């Protein structure tokens, strides 16, 4: 097991979680052309959600993902009707600002309740050791969970009625209306799923490191990068793009100082935006 290979594997594991974090953003953007700036705060709420249920029922943290996901769905419905429904279809600035406003409110309330003390979910799975290198159990489990959820989402979008309705609305809202699909219901559900995905990724991340109410910002930025690399509306593409991003980090790190990684990532991000309008997998929504 060489250092570079170990680094690459670690990168893939971390990347799967980046991908899961980006899926919700990608879905919402693709379906309703809204850039959800509450994304980061929803990830953080997922972290705190996991913390709360884990403190109450000290059991397998991965089983506890389910109630967190459920809470995420409910929260998504609330946020949709509070801020998003009224700005869908209007200028991009409106949706950016209304979701940003909700973000400020959530962070403000969160700081008042939890302050900026770091919180911990102390649940550790044994890792796998190969030579001098060990891959932590939590990272492996998180990557597996992310992949399972992505596959489940893919199945949902392509093999259920609701999923197909969501894709229809995403392709052409007016035509879908004409076909008798209730776009309001579909948009609500799609947004709720997007939030639930964000929350779930937060819940998974909470097992990896101590978090505070401010921890969502980094993941939100990563989600933007991954979503752009993947292209919109293809959530599974987000998972793959996330893995590739993690892999890239893993390949570069052994050779240069890690403090250069953010520059490389954001440089890549801008280049991808400008030079590859279609992303790796997906379509571009109408500008």
């Amino acid at each position, binding site marked *: 097991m060489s*250092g570079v290979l*170990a*680094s690459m594997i*670690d*990168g893939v*594991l*971390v990347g799967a979680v980046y991908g899961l974090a980006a899926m919700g953003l990608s879905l919402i953007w693709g379906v309703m052309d809204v850039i959800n700036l509450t994304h980061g705060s929803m990830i953080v709420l997922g972290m705190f959600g996991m913390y709360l249920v884990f403190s109450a029922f000290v059991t397998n943290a991965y089983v506890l993902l389910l109630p967190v996901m459920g809470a995420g769905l409910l929260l998504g419905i609330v946020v949709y009707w509070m801020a998003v429904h009224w700005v869908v279809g209007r200028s991009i600035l409106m949706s950016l600002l209304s979701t940003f406003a909700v973000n400020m409110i959530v962070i403000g309330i969160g*700081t008042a309740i939890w*302050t*900026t*003390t*770091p919180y*911990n979910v*102390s649940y*550790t799975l044994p*890792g796998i*050791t190969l030579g*001098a*290198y*060990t*891959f*932590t*159990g*939590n*990272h492996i489990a998180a990557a597996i969970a992310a992949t399972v959820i992505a596959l489940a989402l893919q199945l949902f979008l392509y093999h259920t009625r609701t999923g197909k309705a969501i894709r229809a609305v995403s392709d052409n809202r007016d035509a879908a209306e004409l076909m008798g699909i209730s776009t309001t219901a579909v948009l609500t559900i799609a947004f709720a799923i997007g939030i639930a995905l964000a929350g779930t990724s937060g819940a998974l*991340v909470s097992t*990896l*490191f*101590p*978090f*505070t109410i*401010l*921890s969502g*910002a*980094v993941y939100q930025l990563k989600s933007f990068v991954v979503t752009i690399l993947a292209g919109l509306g293809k959530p599974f593409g987000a998972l793959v793009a996330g893995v590739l991003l993690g892999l890239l*980090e*893993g390949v570069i*790190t*052994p050779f240069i*100082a*890690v*403090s250069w*990684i*953010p520059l490389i990532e954001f440089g890549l991000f801008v280049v991808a935006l400008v030079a590859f309008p279609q992303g790796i997998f997906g379509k571009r929504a109408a500008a």
Partner: protein
Amino acid sequence: MKQLTLISLVLFLFVSLGFGQQTITIGFTESKTGALNVDSVEQYRGFELWRDQVNAAGGFKAGGKSYKIQFASYDDESNSKRVQQLYSRMILQDKADFLFSPFSSPLTATAAVVTEQYGKIMLTTGAAEGKTYTLGNHYLFQMFAPAPEYLKVSLDALKAKDPKATVAFVYEDSSFSVAVVTPAKAYAQQLGFNVVFTEAYAPNTTDFSAIIDKVIASKATVLFGGGHYADGSTLARQLYGHKVALKMLTLLVAPDSPQWVELGDAALGVSVPSQWEPQSTFKAQYGPSGADFAKAYTAKYNTPPSYESAGGYASGLILQRAIEQAGGIDAAKVAAALNATDVTTFYGATKFATAANEHGLQIGHSMVLAQWQKDKSGKLVKQVVWPLSGKSANLVYPMH
């Protein structure tokens, strides 16, 4: 008769004014919101405990007058943009007589620009960066031992145990950690250690897997670094998860927090340079003993004091002593008294540099190295392991 009453009344007034109750206003900002919130609160509690004890005793006496303390304090949002506005306000509107610094070096540097303009004395605590004192100041006084001192204790302790160790520095790319590690690396090389790996990670890094793989590849047996709580605790946890074979791990700031025990097995054996520990056995020439301070603090806040709290309380103590020595609150006299300070309190020795190119730098106070060890009942406790003259237990090396 009426005249006598009038005269005695006037005399009484003069006398009571002479022993009149004065109030000293001390201004400072607190990071009630934003990333620095947790540590800033601990610093604030140190200030508050000192103030409450002084006022409960009816104030302290200096130059024939009795002084009570009141605070003028605002939230700086952990943001330097607000600091200058708020310090100006405290000096000009709230008429602060003296200032304490915000928490953290960058905010303190910004505040210093304002306090120096007005010739107001500021005691800085929670700020270890030494650069601010080289810029030509007259009224800054640093309570914390400066950054280059931090890892000296770790390197000295290591030298005594294993002079042939291979050392790695992995630290947060921010002004405090850089100010600590840069001189530490030079000192390590001076002591003859083989420094095999040095790298800084971006602040807010949450995943260290890749950098840990590099540490493993470098075959380092000792690691020093970290930065603040979030990254330090994550680094420790992930180092443990990756089963890195380290014989010693010293991280900045993070392991000093009582929350450190939440890391479970990953917490054991980790050491931290500290400005002060409850086990420190300094004989206080002035102010309460360490035990009394810790007891009063724990009684009031239901949690043991951290070194940020100790620094806060000590700031008040040293200021009080200087005012007593100066016989009043005249800024020039108090500054002279502070410049002449050379005293040991529960917090340790305090002495300020007076040369113009480093005025206010703390030159008396030294750090201690604390390590998390298991006591007889298996509980995790912090022990002071260096310097040998003040230790409460021996350094456990290798740590596992």
